[in-house]
């Protein structure tokens, strides 16, 4: 085990995957000499060469489209979208092409590829460097969507995503990159896609979350236990598609209280799917209505510190307060 932050875990895993298999190639903006704007591919061009670490022109649809072609002809491309906010020109390539290649050919062709995209806010990124995009893509059958929140999960999920025979959208919350540290196994331990993880055990309520919000939920849970004796169980979704409904339902049936916390705009966000799943399948195990906390339904996160803070925390300690209210319902 070695302690690393999240971005270092991604860098090191990607490095090891490239070193282990020359089918793995990297394509994206500034991934070469610059080593990526977040230094995820720092040093890669010198070590693996320009053929494998491809500085792409400024064209997101082209990056994803070319990666699809590579995947169709025996490579294992990892496409980097510099910021998730810029992925939308590639939406059609992901929706109409990558996700449907296997289905529309009756299993004849497949698209083994990873699209990495740094997402999320709270980093003074404003409208176009802060977005949560997971719901758009988790809605598409044929694409897997993961968002690890710890360095170990990032390493394990990236390892699994590169080996996956289908397209995986690998979302990395920028606020977690250097803030979140943790032990990472020195030998890769694959983390299965489609498996949630109970990050904190508890008996009084279940909090389902992912990304940076997961850490705020863990923080609130720790304080509630210490100060008020409330034991919250915190489930890390990790994989938005496919969603591990069983782990969520087992926890909810145990605690009888459920809350979903996500950073994306509240309406039609991933939390809606999770809340609906709980309502459909565990309604009679619940002692309280499901609580859903999402970002405000404004176009995106504003830049000014006070405005951005409102997006992330509209009321002081709003997650902790909601957890306490639910526990006492």
């Amino acid at each position, binding site marked *: 085990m070695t302690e690393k932050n999240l971005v270092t875990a991604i860098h090191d895993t990607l490095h090891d995957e490239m070193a282990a298999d020359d089918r793995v190639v990297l394509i994206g903006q500034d991934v070469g000499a610059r080593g990526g704007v977040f230094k995820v591919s720092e040093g890669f061009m010198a070590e693996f060469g320009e053929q494998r670490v491809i500085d792409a022109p400024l064209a997101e649809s082209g990056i994803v*489209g070319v990666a699809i072609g590579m995947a169709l002809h025996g490579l294992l491309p990892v496409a980097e979208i510099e910021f998730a906010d810029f992925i939308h020109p590639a939406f059609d390539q992901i929706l109409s092409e990558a996700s449907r290649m296997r289905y529309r050919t009756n*299993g004849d062709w497949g698209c083994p590829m990873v699209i990495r995209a740094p997402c999320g806010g709270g980093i003074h990124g404003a409208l176009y460097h802060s977005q949560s995009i997971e719901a758009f893509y988790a809605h598409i059958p044929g694409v897997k969507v993961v968002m690890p929140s710890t360095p170990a999960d990032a390493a394990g999920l990236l390892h699994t995503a590169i080996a996956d025979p289908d397209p995986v959208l690998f979302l990395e919350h920028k606020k977690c990159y250097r803030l979140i540290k943790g032990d990472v196994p020195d030998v890769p331990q694959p983390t299965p896609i489609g498996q949630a993880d109970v990050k904190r055990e508890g008996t009084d309520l279940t909090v389902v979350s992912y990304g940076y919000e997961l850490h705020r939920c863990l923080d609130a849970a720790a304080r509630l236990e210490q100060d008020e004796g409330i034991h919250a169980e915190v489930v890390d979704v990790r994989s938005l598609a496919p969603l591990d409904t069983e782990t969520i339902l087992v926890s909810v049936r145990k605690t009888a209280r459920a809350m979903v916390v996500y950073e994306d705009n509240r309406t039609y966000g991933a939390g809606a799917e999770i809340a609906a799943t709980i309502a459909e399948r565990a309604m009679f195990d619940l002692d309280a209505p499901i609580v859903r906390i999402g970002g405000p339904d404004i176009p995106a996160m504003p830049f000014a510190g006070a405005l951005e803070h409102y997006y992330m925390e509209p009321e002081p300690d709003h997650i902790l307060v909601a957890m306490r209210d639910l526990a006492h319902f």
Partner: protein
Amino acid sequence: MSAQVTETAHGSLGLGVDDLLAMHRTMLTARLIDEAALRQNRMGRAPFVVPVSGHEGCQIGTAWPMRPGIDIWVPYYRDLGVVLVAGMTPEQIFLGLFSKASDPTSGGRQMPSHWSSRGLGIVSHSSPISTQVPHAAGIAYAMKYRNEDGVVASWFGEGATSEGDWHEGLNIASIHRLPVVFICENNEYAISVPQSKQMAVADVASRAEGYGIPGFVVDGNDVLACFRVMKEAHDRARAGEGPTLIECKTYRFLPHTSDDDDKSYRSREEVEERRHHDPIERFATYLVDGGITDRAALQTVHDEVKTQVESAIKAAWDAPDPDPATATRHVFAEDDP
């Protein structure tokens, strides 16, 4: 860098008599499949047909230098002639038209004419336009990376060149001098929109200059001229000299699809006049005038192909439909049976 290519003499092209007759037969097969498919549509047996008539010269001409088993085909939905050269059989075409379980392109999942066959090296494409162009660049990148001898060819209409994906694909392919040939089948209309409202230039090929690659305009109704310009582009790609953009000027004799009414956007006089430049009749005249075959032999070929098409229709129609229980398969690899 665009240049007119008009020479048609087959002798200088390395094509023998067998090649010429096979090319003619393939063009005729595409035409007779097309006409039969529309009849099936009018009979209520085929909900959707994408006609090819008029494009046979540019399709068979540009497809012929490709090497099945080595090169990769990235066609669009009008490319019946291309996939016949790639090795798809008339029966397989009709299995797709009737959306049967054994349809090789998709098992009846896609609309007809959305070609695919991994075994034949035909890459699946969708209905959104030009999305396959970056795929062609990516496949060519993988070929170059793996030091393969292969060439990728991608076909599309002139309307496709307005899409962002078209530009992004050509740009990346040109930057890396990838072994890929881009072929525009310019039939003057994107459904109803004429070329004059699609672009401000006379020739798609002139756009090649913007990518630093050669571009050629060729008479798309002259199958040998199309063969020649493609053969040279194919040779350049194999020699590591990068992509070529070929523009075949042609015409679509029939509506865009079986659901289109082309009377609303082009006159009958125009269509009738363009039928006088039929690429199949033009090639037949070349073959007869050159003493390569005669009219009686061509009629025999016509009858043989017609019989083949009719038996393909019967076999395909009698094939089983997809089992509804299979509709949820192949979303992910783990769903594959």
